[in-house]
């Protein structure tokens, strides 16, 4: 880990237009939470559906997409990453420092907005909060690592990520059984399913067991991180165009 790289990454994430978008997404979630409460008068069943589908299926991937790609994509795009790479630092250190900042940002933003949304929409005890904070945290790690890797590998990471997030995780992951087994959202939901075990009306449905979900998440996160680091080592850079 390198503190200077981390500070610079944090500055990049918090500055500029991206930061505004990052605030817009949680605001949207809170709005939907308000509507959910208004429509269901605080029924926790509706809250659970909102958290499992909208929060985890749509907003969290988008948030992680912005953060994961934003932590390194713009610098690769405009070439300023050369100031980090032309240093006697292992590329692994640079990649892991940036990824750590990105995952931390996703965790903080993802969990806080989820807690707030569940409280607004209506919880039953703290059951839903506990369940979904766990799932959101797990999904945030997986999603951010995937999008971070995409930003190193592809110049059109945002488009590719958007298609993956909305199509694969959102639409196909919701309806096509085969894909549902290979979905970050389903893996992460297995944790919420376990926490809410015994409360059938609240319990979200996950395609996989908790063990499978955790193992798949861990493998995916490690694999994409290794891929990203390897690509950064040989990232072709024209010193000029």
């Amino acid at each position: 880990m390198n503190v200077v790289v981390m500070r610079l990454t944090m500055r990049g994430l918090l500055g500029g237009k991206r930061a505004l978008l990052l605030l817009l997404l949680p605001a949207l979630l809170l709005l939907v939470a308000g509507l959910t409460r208004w429509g269901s008068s605080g029924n926790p069943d509706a809250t659970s559906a909102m958290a499992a589908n909208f929060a985890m299926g749509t907003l969290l991937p988008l948030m992680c997409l912005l953060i994961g790609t934003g932590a390194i994509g713009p610098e690769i795009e405009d070439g300023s990453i050369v100031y980090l790479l032309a240093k006697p630092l292992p590329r692994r250190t640079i990649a892991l420092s940036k990824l750590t900042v990105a995952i931390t940002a996703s965790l903080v933003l993802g969990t806080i907005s989820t807690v707030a949304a569940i409280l607004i929409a209506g919880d039953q005890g703290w059951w839903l909060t506990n369940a979904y904070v766990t799932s959101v945290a797990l999904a945030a790690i997986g999603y951010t690592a995937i999008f971070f890797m995409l930003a190193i590998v592809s110049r059109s990471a945002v488009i590719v990520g958007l298609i993956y997030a909305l199509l694969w995780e959102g639409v196909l992951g919701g309806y096509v059984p085969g894909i549902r087994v290979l979905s970050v959202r389903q893996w992460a939901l297995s944790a919420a399913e376990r926490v809410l075990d015994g409360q059938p009306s609240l319990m979200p449905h996950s395609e996989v067991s908790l063990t499978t979900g955790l193992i798949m998440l861990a493998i995916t996160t490690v694999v994409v991180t290794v891929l990203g680091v390897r690509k950064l080592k040989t990232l072709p850079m024209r010193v000029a165009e």
Partner: protein
Amino acid sequence: MSLIELTGVSRWFGNVVAVNDVTMTIGAGVTGLLGPNGAGKSTLLSMMSGFLAPSAGTVTLDGVPVWLNTDVYRRIGLVPETEALYDSLTGWEFVLINAQLHQLPDPAAATRRAIAAVDMVDAQKREVGKYSKGMKQRIKMATALVHEPEVLLLDEPFNGMDPRQRMHLLDLLQSLAAEGRTVLFSSHILEEVEQIAGTIEVLVAGRHAASGDFRKIRRLMTERPHQYSITSADDRKLAAAIIADGSADAVSLSVKGLEVQASDFGRFVQALPRLAQAGHIQLFEVTPADESLESVFAYLVSR
């Protein structure tokens, strides 16, 4: 003293060959990498700075390959052509971050020294995003100098500089070379290169076309065959006189006038007015045909 050695270096992108079998050694002092735009200078510099793998051949710094070796950056300072900087940082912060990334023992002192060397003390508290092109160039230079590298690689460093900034950078590069450092910069302007470069390496269409001090390169360029378009009161008579005199290699006559090729540039330009006067032929127009840098380079390659 540090040596960059390129041995049989080629680089291709798909079907396009950007650099073709280049072998050269760059040692202490200022070396200019001269070539027209698109000659492969940036590709070559990318390979020298470890940002691109050669498709064939090797690039080494004192015998150690630079590709996949981030340790070489302790000894290499790189000034990329790209304009993109960390725009929200001030000049001071930007250079300081570079010093910290180098893990220097006293980053603040190194930053102060580097900023003073490029004469940017007055502007160091302003955001780099708001700098002019010349100022960006100088702050980039400061980031490359902050760890006092033995080797300095600069891509088109004079682009966008006004004459005063250019003078200042020339002085700075010369003083770095005087300290025994290896300084390599690329440019497509011969005059720029011959002002300071002790050695000039000419790259054309990816090939290493010529190498030597500026006198040698200058001579190669002036001794090549020169083309002239001439119109006069009596083209046919003038053509006969030029052929008889022997100061040109070839003369062709058309309705548009004369096309003359002379390999001895000095001799021909002296002979032409003399021949015209002796034959009482009025000269209307004498135009050197292809003085563009590209044609000069093209000649060097075809030699």
